[in-house]
């Protein structure tokens, strides 16, 4: 039994928070005691903020990074078997990794509240898909909250925990990137104290996923869905409501999540009073009566949601609705304000006017300005590693993985990427295909980051050892999970709460333990050593039909550790303008001067790591030391 006790003390202040901080604050205030996550944009700031607020408010919350989302989810959900409020946090594709425990545990009658926070990335801005996690909620038959801003996201955390506890079911909060990364003034409260002792009662049918249990739990889950849908129809007017036009409505717009906010600001700037808006904050299970009633009252209805037609597909009849089924609303990409404005104009029967200004277009063309693509940072050790790998075995195929080092694509060092951990398994697939076709084996040199190696690289490596696959796996160990903002991982050992020390897991030892017979470590900046050891590793792999591992090590630039500075310049007498350095080293600090037809150092970005001295085949990049 969870006893709600009176609020310990009330401090009421306002602060400007990132959406993710607001969510974290809600999690701590709601008395969540176990929080686990694996980082991933746009969700990464939530867990560290939970640790921060727990420290600040003196909560006992245990806050930990799992090595992947499946691990994090399983840790969190099982804590909710025991009477302790818990939450798991991940990005949308993280739930693919955690899908197995998620689908299974959705059937369980939890003892305490469990909140799954799953952050979506319409666009996408930093993801390999723009999948809609609300569909995952529907798939697993668990309720989903879709906040329109940071304030609502924080409020929903409390309701999601309460609903979870009322029906003993996992609930999902699905913020999209614009909510995660919005900055808004938010009310801060204090912790709602609750009695949450650990109490695990042995009850195998309840806590195991045997088919016999499913036969009881699945119908029960359906009944929970029916009950929750009914509650969403009537009891959640704070999230599901209609904003009525002051005049006669010509159009009704159904919105969910941040689309509500976008539409409201457009209507404000248009000063229109003939459009009704229905806001739905609980898209699954959809309060169907409420939505159908809105549709019945309007001649013309537009439905806006990101990124999949989750509400739309729950409608008994959507033929009257302008949405994705009739291709009015784009089926991919973010519904930016400009897109939404165009859609509103279109369904109101107007002429779309969004055309680029001719002068601005001409200026961009004449000045050759294009969006700047993401690049590895100046001084990034990955750049040096990719250069060594490419130069060592130019004929190799280079599968890679997900992390900052995916940007090695700019150096032509990344040939295939699927998802986290697939660098090893893609290599295995290529090895098997080469073997089957009886071709002379091309070298295979894959790259993976330290965090990604722990996340899902290890099973593939074990499989490659077991099956005798000749490949080289280069582990790029920069001592951090860089792409997502610099979280610690098992190779680092640090944990999130103050004074909470973890243990370091040694990558070399893990590889040896997996049965890898060749494991060597080089300094990433040492291009010559890197080239030599990659060659040696491939020889070993080929001769013994086994994977070989090379670890490239140097701290990430984001860690700002002190290192030698070696200022350089390009000697224009030696530079022949071949662009080799641009194409294969690709550093923001080293650019091509189109007028002079020479490479030059861009002092705005160069950090004097000195690695590029090893890059120019004509020796034109030289140290300025002593000049």
């Amino acid at each position, binding site marked *: 039994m969870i006893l709600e006790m009176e609020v310990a003390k009330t401090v009421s202040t306002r602060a400007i928070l990132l959406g993710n901080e607001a969510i974290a604050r809600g999690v701590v205030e709601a008395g969540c005691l176990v929080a686990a996550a694996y980082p991933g944009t746009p969700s990464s700031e939530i867990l560290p903020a939970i640790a921060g607020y727990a420290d600040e408010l003196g909560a006992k919350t245990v806050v930990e990074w799992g090595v992947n989302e499946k691990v994090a989810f399983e840790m969190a959900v099982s804590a909710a078997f025991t009477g302790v409020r818990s939450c798991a946090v991940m990005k949308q594709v993280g739930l693919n990794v955690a899908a197995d425990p998620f689908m299974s545990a959705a059937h369980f009658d939890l003892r305490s509240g469990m909140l799954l926070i799953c952050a979506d990335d319409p666009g996408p801005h*930093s993801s390999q898909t723009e999948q809609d996690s609300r569909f995952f909620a529907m798939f697993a038959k668990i309720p989903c909250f879709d906040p329109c801003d940071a304030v609502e996201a924080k409020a929903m955390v409390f309701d999601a925990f309460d609903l979870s506890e009322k029906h003993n079911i996992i609930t999902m909060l699905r913020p999209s990137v614009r909510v995660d990364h*919005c900055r808004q003034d938010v009310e801060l409260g204090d912790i709602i104290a609750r009695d949450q002792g650990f109490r695990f009662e042995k009850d195998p049918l309840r806590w195991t996923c045997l088919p016999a249990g499913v036969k009881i739990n699945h119908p029960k889950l359906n009944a929970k869905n029916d009950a929750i849908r009914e509650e969403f129809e009537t009891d959640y007017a704070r999230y599901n409501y209609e904003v009525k036009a002051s005049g006669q409505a010509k159009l009704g717009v159904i919105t969910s999540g941040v689309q509500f906010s976008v539409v409201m600001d457009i209507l404000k700037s248009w000063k229109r009073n003939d459009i009704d808006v229905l806001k739905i904050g609980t898209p699954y299970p959809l309060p169907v009566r409420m939505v159908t009633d809105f549709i019945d009252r309007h001649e013309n209805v537009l439905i806006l949601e990101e990124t999949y037609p989750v509400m739309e597909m729950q409608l008994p009849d959507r033929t009257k609705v302008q949405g994705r089924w009739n291709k009015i609303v784009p089926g991919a990409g973010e519904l930016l304000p400009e897109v939404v404005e165009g859609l509103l104009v279109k369904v109101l029967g107007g002429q779309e006017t969004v055309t680029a200004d001719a002068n601005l277009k001409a200026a961009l063309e004449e000045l050759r300005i294009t969006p700047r*693509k993401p690049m590895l940072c100046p001084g990034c050790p990955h750049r040096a590693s990719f250069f060594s790998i490419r130069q060592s075995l130019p004929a190799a195929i280079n599968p890679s993985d997900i992390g900052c080092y995916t940007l090695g694509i700019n150096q032509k060092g990344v040939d295939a990427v699927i998802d986290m951990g697939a660098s090893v398994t893609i290599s295995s697939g290529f090895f098997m295909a080469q073997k089957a076709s009886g071709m002379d084996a091309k070298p295979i040199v894959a790259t993976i980051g330290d965090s990604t190696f722990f996340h899902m690289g290890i099973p593939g490596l074990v499989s490659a050892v077991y099956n005798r696959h000749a490949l080289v796996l280069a582990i790029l160990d920069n001592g951090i999970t860089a792409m997502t903002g610099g979280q610690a991982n098992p190779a680092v050992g640090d944990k999130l709460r103050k004074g909470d020390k973890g243990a370091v897991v040694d990558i070399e030892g893990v590889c040896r333990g997996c049965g890898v017979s060749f494991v060597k470590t080089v300094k990433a900046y040492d291009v010559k050593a890197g080239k030599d050891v990659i060659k040696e590793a491939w020889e070993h792999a080929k001769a013994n039909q086994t994977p070989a591992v090379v670890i490239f090590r140097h701290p990430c630039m984001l860690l700002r550790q002190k290192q030698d500075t070696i200022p350089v310049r390009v000697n224009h007498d030696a530079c022949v303008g071949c662009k080799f350095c641009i194409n294969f080293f690709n550093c*923001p600090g080293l650019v091509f001067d189109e007028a002079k037809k020479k490479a030059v150092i861009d002092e705005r970005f160069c950090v004097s790591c000195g690695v590029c001295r090893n890059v120019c085949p004509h020796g034109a990049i030289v140290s300025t030391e002593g000049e």
Partner: protein
Amino acid sequence: MQYVIVGIGGQGILFSSKVLGKIALSRGESVMGSEVHGMAQRGGSVISHFKIGQYKSPLVKAGEADALLAFDQNEAVRNLHFLRNGGSLIVNVHDAAALGNEHLKAYIREHDIRVYPLEGYELLKKHMNGNFLFLNVLIVGAMCGAGVGNVSYEEVRNAVRELSPAKFADANMKVLELGYEALKGV
């Protein structure tokens, strides 16, 4: 008031909206904005939106920004369409000649945009030993000096002081003044 802040990942553009937010909060006003985190931060184009007043959406719609703060002049040109007619551009210039482009000048004239160029890199080379990490503070100072953004110098000084880690407090105040003086009264 709606601001769009643009630059290149790593330049620290988020600092500007932190300053603006602090000021708004102390005035009791509501704020709403949007930031970029993740992949694009790695040296790519970055954009942040910030609105003070009664807004719901975190994004500024094209043609509605009152002020555009550009840490990079190319990003300024790419995002100029966010400014409303009569809006203001504060731009860190590294290649002044490019800004003389006739089409660009025509667009700026047509839309009545006030342009405040700032040679940020030169200033930081001269006064801060070439430490370009101070660009964010410099631009906030310049915005205030140019009288753009509806914030007083006193408010900005207080906000920057509060937001600065102790280690950088003095240097930040110096750079703020440098930016302020550079565009004061232009």
